[in-house]
């Protein structure tokens, strides 16, 4: 019983982290129809930015927003120079190549500038673990889960309530219609790209203290994020959260009770099963046939 409870706690907290990585992917896909393979690289940039800002003397909690700004600025530069020219309306093929190349370039740049060795990202929550009734909870994980829930809820609310958020939703549902109704579609696309990149940076800043900063730190996390996003339904933020929860709990339970070696296959099997039953994912919209 205790084992089950600890496992469920692990799974929930794990899921909250996954959601944070996945939400940026899903926003970018939803509005831009770009499969962003560079997400992991921006995740890494978030962790490195946090680390460097902390080294410059800022405390962790201040370093997080500053790091997110830094990553967003890099994202903005890339958007203005590359993404806008090469990707919009070019279909998925171009986006796969370009985002993959961006990712390779960022990882190589990190190795050249900072070096390949993993570096600690200091956090006030550090290695502290809270023990509640015999169950262990890492302070940093609780912080990540809380931040993740707060940020995701705030983001969902902003999408619903604000004018810009509404416009993002409109573009993601029907870019042509949005254009006709006077929405500045290019601006909304740029904004969505920046939001997605910033979310990746935030995830890196929050998870850095747990996994350390190293150039390829994003790779494995982004693979999980892809399963989360597809499971939930590409482009659906609610779906990303639900998918993250399902995969977080599923992985935790499977690892504890079934097999550790086969766990990486679990997410994919879930994805395939769900897609067979609901091709649009758990919370994705059924697409109207448009010719």
């Amino acid at each position, binding site marked *: 019983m205790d084992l089950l409870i600890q496992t469920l706690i692990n799974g929930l907290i794990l899921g909250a982290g996954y959601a944070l990585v996945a939400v940026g992917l899903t926003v970018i896909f939803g509005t831009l129809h770009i499969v962003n393979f560079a997400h992991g690289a921006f995740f890494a940039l978030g962790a490195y930015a946090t680390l460097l800002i902390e080294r410059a003397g800022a405390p962790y909690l201040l370093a997080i927003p500053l790091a997110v700004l830094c990553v967003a600025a890099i994202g903005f530069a890339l958007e203005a120079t590359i993404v806008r020219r090469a990707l919009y309306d070019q279909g998925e093929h171009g986006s796969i190549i370009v985002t993959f190349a961006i990712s390779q370039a960022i990882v190589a740049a990190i190795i050249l500038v900072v070096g390949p060795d*993993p570096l600690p990202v200091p956090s006030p929550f550090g290695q502290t673990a809270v023990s509640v009734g015999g169950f262990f909870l890492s302070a940093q994980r609780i912080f990540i889960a809380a931040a993740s829930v707060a940020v995701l809820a705030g983001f969902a609310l902003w999408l619903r309530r604000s004018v810009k958020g509404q416009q993002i939703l409109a573009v993601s549902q029907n870019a042509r219609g949005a254009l006709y109704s006077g929405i500045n579609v290019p601006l909304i696309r740029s904004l969505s790209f920046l939001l997605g990149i910033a979310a990746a940076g935030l995830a890196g800043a929050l998870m850095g203290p747990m996994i*350390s900063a*190293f150039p390829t730190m994003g790779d494995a996390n982004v693979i999980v994020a892809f399963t989360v996003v597809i499971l939930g339904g590409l482009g659906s933020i609610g779906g990303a959260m639900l998918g993250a929860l399902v995969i977080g709990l599923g992985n935790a339970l499977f690892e504890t009770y079934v097999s550790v070696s086969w*766990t*990486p296959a679990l997410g994919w099997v879930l994805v395939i099963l769900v897609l067979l039953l609901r091709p649009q994912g758990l919370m994705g919209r059924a697409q109207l046939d448009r010719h």
Partner: protein
Amino acid sequence: MKLRAKAALAALAVLVATPAAQAADPVKIGMVLPLTGPTAGYGKDGKLGADMAAAEINAAGGILDGREIELVYEDEKGAPQDGVAAVQKLMTRERVQAIIAGMNSSITLAESAITKNRILHVNPAAQADAITAQGSPWLFQINNTASTNATIFHTYLTEQMAPKAIAVMGENTEFNKAVLENLREIVGESSVELAEIATYDGATTDFTSIITRLKSTGADMIYVIDAYPARTAQIWKQIRQQGGFPMEAHAVGTVQRSAIVPAEGAMEGVITADIFIAEGATGDMARFIDRFTEQNGVAPNKVSLVVYEAVKVVAGAMDKAGSADDYALISDTLRGNVWTTPRGALSFDDNGRAKAPYFYIHKVTGEDVGLLDTFEVE
């Protein structure tokens, strides 16, 4: 100690006595290291060691009557087919006279299929027994084999630390398999119980559930088998967050500062072992560490050391054999002599395996490992 100093003096005498010949063609040695990709850190460490060795050899007048050593680097990117490509390029295009290649066991095995019976191949760091078990006459290994190292370490774990039950977690690699096999054997001869073995995939991002599962077995020792610094740090952090285990150990030869520093103290007290330790070094080793630190601004680690030794041993053997490409002769020279390295006298057996003179049990202390015990390797 005395013996070692004498050997060093003898080596020095040979070098001094060599007349500084006219600059002949340099002897090219191909260095295959992971310079990009997830294990690029090892490549960086190795390169520092190799460069230092080459600089020392050349400063002392080179080998074979004044020929300089030229190191040609190729990137194996942490993948077998890139390792193979690197070796082939070095052999056929760069026409190197020897190959120094070997960090990861799978990659080294792939590379050794190319070098077998064609060129001198020295594997500095990879440990899997399968590499030198192939019977390649011109393949040599600087590091101990996984089973040699593991036997000593596992005996230490079971006999000296004497836990009731060990829980094991490790990445699904060839290295892990070899270590596990040895562990099963040693544990089988003792009263210690193997509580649980969790083998995870390289893509695993989180270890809490695995650790929860292992803790639930009631084991009083956790033993982690992972050679990847970033993941090592992450695993130990998560073990610490779940309250840790009464006894904690990490596989031989895989704990470097590059894991301990990002672990931010979570590895404090973890028991491990290696063929190298900086703490308390004396004689040649102390001088090596000082020189290295002075030149590079960082202290050397095991990887830097074995790659340094590999270059020195290759150069020394060529020099002594009087040839850079008669591999049968060079190999006989390698086997028939004792080689002085910072660690002491190194000799190679019929399989090309070196045995480190000493084996150290470490305990992680602060940002590095501290010495707990020393064994002489028979």
